[in-house]
């Protein structure tokens, strides 16, 4: 009922604010995103509400499997075959802007100073020459998932608040067989999952080095960086509370109830909710040396250069709706991704929510990495950890090599 009322208000606002052009002949615009059931469901709801409020505009959603999505979009948009409104990972935007495939959002409907004030600061990465190129509906952050049953079994009452407590708690929950093989992990690990974000934006900062300089170059190749990497690798090598190959994937181990704690993004909530028999809770990432940090990422919606005339107008209206507070709340409830505006995210209700609360609180101190090539940059850290674990390289050497490799990726990207 509340939703209907809101929709009505939205419709009225749209009709008033956008003038007479609203009621015109039928326009169909196309929207693309990757397939993830909850995201598609959420978008279906948004499209339904939008179409009800804007008679004459229909939105056709097309989705692709995640693995193909980036290639499909990259092949279709330059060929003029793509959608009018497209969902892109924030890290890809630069490429699209440089190639002129994305239209800036008109300042009258999307005033930059208003967006600066209303959205989380990390969204400002989407601004070019004083205009926003794209906007997110939702953002994601990291948090610590924990298995309540294993906590109880080990006599742990509250989730760890610091890195020291994290290690201590993990030790209490780690089980091994007679030969010393881990059969239950205290904490999951794996650079191929979310841990490379944890190291980059959280551990590096906690150990005293920013990951990148102001100009975007690599800044972690120093003692503090090496200490952070050493601490991370020691979880497996020295403390023996984790094993990065345990049960193939970190999230699988946690899902199976074989791991006490697991660091992952808010997008994992949906999958865990549907896991029967798993009793889990969420806590903020532990602070280290008194520093709290988090990593946030987001998908943005943008208007492609293909949209013109009526379609452009319709696309702009659609963009306005899917970045509204109402859309953000629907997205949160359906997908579990957090609203991109503090006003919508940091509501007392959301902050008190046992599941969303820790993520929402984490957002207020989160950093978004400006990636040039996320998988390439991830691989640099994957390899650094592997060189230490498999080839016995020292943390300083491993990190130095990683820094050189990552800088090379950034340089190549910037030279484009």
């Amino acid at each position, binding site marked *: 009922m509340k939703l209907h009322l809101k929709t009505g208000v939205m419709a009225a606002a749209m009709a008033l604010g956008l003038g007479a052009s609203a009621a015109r002949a039928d326009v169909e615009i196309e929207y693309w995103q990757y397939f993830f059931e909850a995201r598609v469901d959420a978008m279906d709801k948004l499209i339904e509400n939008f179409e009800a409020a804007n008679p004459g505009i229909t939105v056709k959603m097309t989705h692709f499997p995640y693995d193909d999505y980036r290639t499909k979009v*990259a092949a279709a948009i330059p060929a003029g075959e793509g959608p009018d409104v497209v969902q892109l990972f924030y890290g890809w935007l630069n490429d699209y802007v440089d190639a002129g495939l994305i239209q800036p959002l008109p300042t009258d409907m999307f005033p930059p100073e208003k967006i600066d004030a209303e959205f989380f600061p990390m969204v400002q990465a989407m601004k070019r020459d004083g205009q926003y190129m794209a906007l997110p509906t939702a953002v994601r952050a990291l948090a610590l998932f924990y298995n309540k049953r294993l906590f109880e079994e080990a006599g742990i009452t509250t989730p760890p608040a610091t890195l020291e407590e994290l290690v201590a708690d993990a030790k209490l929950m780690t089980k091994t067989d007679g*030969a010393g093989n881990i*059969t239950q992990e205290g904490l999951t690990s794996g650079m191929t999952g979310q841990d490379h974000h944890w190291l980059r934006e959280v551990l590096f900062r906690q150990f005293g080095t920013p990951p990148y300089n102001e100009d975007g170059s690599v800044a972690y190749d120093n003692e503090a960086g090496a200490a952070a990497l050493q601490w991370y690798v020691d979880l497996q090598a020295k403390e023996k509370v984790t094993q990065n190959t345990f*049960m193939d994937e970190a999230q699988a181990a946690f899902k199976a109830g*074989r791991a006490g704690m697991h660091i992952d993004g808010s997008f994992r909530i949906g999958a865990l909710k549907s896991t029967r028999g798993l009793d889990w809770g969420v806590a903020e990432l532990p602070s280290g040396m008194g520093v709290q940090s988090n990593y946030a990422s987001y998908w943005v919606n943008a208007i492609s250069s293909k949209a013109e005339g009526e379609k452009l107008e319709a696309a702009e209206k659609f963009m306005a709706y899917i970045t509204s507070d109402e859309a953000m709340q629907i997205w949160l409830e359906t997908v579990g991704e957090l609203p991109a505006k503090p006003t919508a995210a940091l509501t007392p209700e959301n902050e008190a929510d046992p599941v969303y609360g820790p993520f929402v609180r984490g957002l207020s101190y989160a950093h978004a990495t400006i990636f040039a090539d996320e*998988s390439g940059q991830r691989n640099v850290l994957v*390899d650094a950890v592997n060189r230490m674990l*498999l080839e016995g390289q020292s943390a300083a050497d491993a990190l130095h090599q990683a820094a050189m490799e990552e800088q090379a990726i950034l340089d190549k990207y910037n030279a484009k």
Partner: protein
Amino acid sequence: MSVFRDPTIEQRRIRWAWTFLALPIVFYVTIRFWPTADAFVLSFQKWNLLKPREWVGFDNYVTLWNDPVFWKVFRNTFVYLIIGTPVSLVIAFIVAWHLDKVRFLHGTIRALYFLPFMTSAVAMAWVWRWFYQPVPIGLFNNMLASLGFSQVAFLNSTSNALPAVLAPAIWAGLGFQIIIFMAGLRAIPVSYYEAAKIDGVSGLTVLWEITLPLLKPTMVFLVVFSSIGFLRIFDQVFNMTTNDPGGPLNATKPLVLLIYQTAFGGSFEMGYAAAQTVVLFLILLIVSLIQLRILRDR
């Protein structure tokens, strides 16, 4: 233009033939040859899909020459070939040689060997991936642990990973090779064996002097066929190491996976990927030519 107005039967035939041939020719030219030619052109260009192509001369090849990952991958590709082809051929021959003499449940056993060949490589790679996991979910390591041995890091090791990935690839190809070998064995005239028997020749000599030489065409076919297969290995590697494709530390990465990652892995370096593809094309060409040469020497 008398041909069109009043064609002879011969001309009519030729015209029909060309009509029927046109479709496959157009198909092959647009789907195969044109993209192949375009890949050669692309290898001298820079292209990230989004922006127009740009000529860069030999830059991509220079980058390739100086890229340590490329040389590592180049080596891996040949390790797959050099271990994979002989091992699979020897095993396939031994199985076929013995299976040829078995009458009891012959069809069933042959079907069992052939089964992995019909299974999807992706599904099989995933099953083997689970076999190789550490305790508590890996089949092999659970067996080792229950017998009191220490675990073996099959996939998470720079030295074990490549053979571990190669094993299921060899196993999957066995069924096909066994069938071909058996067909080859059946084609050897029985009279040769009878003559050898009358002369009282030993089994080993029969194998060495009769069976193997007469199987040469079969073997050459299988060597060419399986060499190309191992040089193009991808499915097994990619699916067994999806968390860190071709890892750890590029220990299992073959050329095709490198090409895939360069092209679609994140930065869309299409020109560089095309240069790698040209190198793969040349390797396949040279290996095939050498093998065909051997075939002609027959």
